[in-house]
C-alpha cells in the first residue's frame, strides 16, 4: 500500500511534497509500533496467555458452577490433600488439580486467586502510575524544595529493603485484599516518578515550553499538555514491566501471611498452608507457584515487546 502511494506521487512531473510525505507516513507511529510488537512472537504469546488468565479470572464464578462444579470455599474434610483428578465417587465431579488441606478444590481456588492477584496487580500499577506521574512531574517541573522532598522520599524507598517496610505497613493497617494495592503502590511509585522527573528536567528548558509560558499557559496545562505526552511511551513500558514485580511482591506478602487473608484465596496464601503439607501433597506447592511463574513470565514478555515496539532505540 505504501509503495503504491509513493510510486504514484513520484510519477507526477512536479511531485507534491506534502502528498508524498503523507503517503510515506501513512502507517502512523502506533501502526508501526503495533507491527513491531506483532513480529515479536514471545510478546504475542505472552499477551495471549495473559488474556486467557484474565478471562479465567473474570469468568471465575460461572466457570466454578459450570465447569469445575466446586466453590472456592467449599470444604470437604474427608477429601483433603487428594491428588490430581481425584473424585469421591466416579459420578461426582473430579478435582482436576486435587484438593488442599481442607478438601477445597485447588483449580477453583486458583481461578478465584487469579481474580485477586491480577486485580491487585492492575490496581497497584494504576495507582503507581498516578502517584509516580504526579510526584515526578512536580519534582521535575517545580524543582527547589518540592524536588528536594520528593527526591529524598524516592532515595529512602530505594535504599530500604521494601519487604520489611511492607510487612510493617500491612501489619499496622491490616488492609482488606483490595487495600493491598494501596500498600504496594505506596512503596513502588519511585520507578515511574524518577522516569517522569528526568523527562521533565530535560524538556522544561526547551524553547517551546518557554513559548507556551509566554502565551500565558497555566502550569497544569504546560505539565499535562506540553511535557507529559513526551513521557507516555517510557511510562507505559515501565508500568507494564512493573506488573511482574508487583505480582511477585503481593504473592510473597500473602505467602508470609501479611497480604491477602484467608479464606480469600490468593496464589500466594495458597502456598502458605501447602508448606505444612509438603510431605503429604507436594503438588499443592507446585500448582499455585506455576501460575505465578507463568503470569510473571508472560507479563515480562509483553513488557519487553512493548518496549521494543514503542521505543526501538532502547532495544537490547
Amino acid at each position, binding site marked *: 500500500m505504501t509503495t503504491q502511494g509513493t510510486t504514484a506521487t513520484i510519477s507526477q512531473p512536479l511531485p507534491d511534497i506534502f502528498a508524498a510525505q503523507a503517503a510515506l507516513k501513512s502507517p502512523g507511529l502506533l501502526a508501526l509500533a503495533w507491527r513491531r510488537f506483532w513480529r515479536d512472537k514471545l510478546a504475542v504469546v505472552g499477551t495471549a496467555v495473559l488474556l486467557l488468565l484474565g478471562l479465567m479470572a473474570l469468568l471465575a464464578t460461572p466457570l466454578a458452577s459450570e465447569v469445575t462444579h466446586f466453590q472456592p470455599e467449599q470444604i470437604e474434610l474427608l477429601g483433603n490433600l487428594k491428588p490430581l483428578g481425584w473424585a469421591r465417587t466416579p459420578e461426582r465431579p473430579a478435582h482436576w488439580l486435587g484438593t488442599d488441606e481442607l478438601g477445597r478444590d485447588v483449580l477453583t481456588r486458583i481461578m478465584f486467586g487469579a481474580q485477586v492477584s491480577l486485580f491487585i496487580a492492575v490496581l497497584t500499577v494504576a495507582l503507581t502510575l498516578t502517584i509516580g506521574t504526579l510526584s515526578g512531574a512536580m519534582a521535575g517541573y517545580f524543582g527547589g524544595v518540592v524536588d528536594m522532598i520528593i527526591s*529524598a*522520599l524516592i*532515595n*529512602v524507598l*530505594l*535504599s*530500604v*529493603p*521494601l*519487604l*520489611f*517496610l511492607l*510487612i*510493617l*505497613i500491612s*501489619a*499496622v*493497617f491490616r488492609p482488606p485484599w483490595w487495600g493491598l494495592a494501596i500498600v504496594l503502590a505506596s512503596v513502588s511509585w519511585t520507578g515511574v516518578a524518577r522516569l517522569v522527573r528526568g523527562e521533565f528536567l530535560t524538556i522544561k528548558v526547551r524553547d517551546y515550553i518557554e513559548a507556551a509560558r509566554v502565551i500565558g499557559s497555566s502550569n497544569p496545562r504546560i505539565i499535562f499538555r506540553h511535557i507529559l505526552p513526551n513521557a507516555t511511551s517510557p511510562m507505559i513500558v515501565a508500568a507494564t514491566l512493573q506488573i*511482574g514485580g508487583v505480582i*511477585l511482591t503481593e*504473592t*510473597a506478602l500473602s*505467602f*508470609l*501471611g*501479611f497480604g491477602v487473608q484467608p479464606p480469600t484465596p490468593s496464589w*500466594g496464601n495458597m*502456598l502458605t498452608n*501447602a*508448606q505444612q503439607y*509438603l*510431605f503429604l501433597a*507436594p503438588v499443592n*506447592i*507446585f500448582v*499455585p*507457584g506455576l501460575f*505465578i*511463574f507463568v503470569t*510473571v*513470565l508472560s507479563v*515480562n*514478555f509483553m513488557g519487553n515487546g512493548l518496549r521494543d515496539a514503542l521505543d526501538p532505540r532502547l532495544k*537490547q
Partner: protein
Amino acid sequence: MTKYLIRRLIQSVPIFFLITIIVFSLINFAPGGPTGDLALFDPNIKPEDIARIRASMGLDKSVPERYLIFVGGLLHGDLGTSLIQRGVKVSDMIAERLPKTLLLTGTALLMALLIAVPLGVLSAVKQYSLLDNLATFFSTAGVAIPSFWLGLMMILLFAVNLGWFPVGGIYEVRNQTIEAGDVLWHLTLPAITLAFISIASWNRYIRASMLEVIRQDYVRTARAKGLAERLVIFRHALRNSLIPFVTLLGLSLPGLVSGALVTETIFSWAGMGRLAFTATTQRDYPLIMGVVIMASALTILGNLAADIAYGFLDPRIRYD
C-alpha cells in the same frame, strides 16, 4: 576523594533519619496505636489499666517528644525492650541475629557474583552461542520465579525427595557443638535460593556492559599488541565493564535483604528476616522498629560501600 567520602556520608544521614521518622510514624499513627490490641486480648481490661500501661511505655507523652526519646536512645544503641520477651533488649536480639543474616546474604552475594560474572562474560564473548542462548533463557525464566516458590521446590526436591540437604535451620540441634561443615551444609539451599534471582539478572547486565566494552578501541589495541585473548577479556575488558555493575550491586542490596526475609522464613534460618517476620506476627512493636531500622541501615551502608568502591574503580569520576 576524602571530600567525596565525607559528602557521601553526610548524604546518607538524612536518609537514615527519614527512615526512622517513617517507621516511627507508621507505628504511632496505626489505628489504636501500640496498645490497640490490649482490649482484644482481654475484653475486661479497665480504661485506667490501659492508661497505666500506656504511661509505663511512655505513651502519655506527645508524639514529637516520644520520637526524640526514641532517636536519642537509638543513637546510644538503645532500641528499647521487647514487648513479648519481657525485659530482653531489642539491641541484644538484633546483635544475636545479625551475623546469621550477614552469613546468609554474604554467601548468596558471593555465590551470585562467582556465577553471574563469568556467565555474563562468556555470554558476551560468545554472543548468540548455545551457552548465550541458554543463559538468556535461564535469566528470563529466573527473574519470573517467585523466590518463596523456588525455596519450597528446593526443599521438596533436595531435602524431602533426595535427602541431600536439611529442610531448614542453621545447624543440627542434636550436635553438642556447632561445626563449620554442618553450618555450610545447612546454608547451601537457602543461599542458592537467595542468590538465584541475582544470578539471573546480573549476568544479563554484565553481558550487556561487556558487549559495549569489547567494541572499544583500547580493547582492539590490546588485541593488536598480541595479548592473549584471555588477558584481553579478563584484564582489560572486564575491569571496565564491572564499573557500572558496582552501582547496580549497590542498588540491588535492598532487594537482597528483602529476599533474605522470605528465604529465612522458609528455611527457618534464625536471622534478621525471620526476626522481622515473627516480631510483626506478634506485633512486638519495639522489635519491629529496631529490625526495620537496622535492616535499612545495613542497606544504606552497603550502598555507601558500593559508591566508594565506584570511586576507587573509576579514576575518571570527579568528586565535585
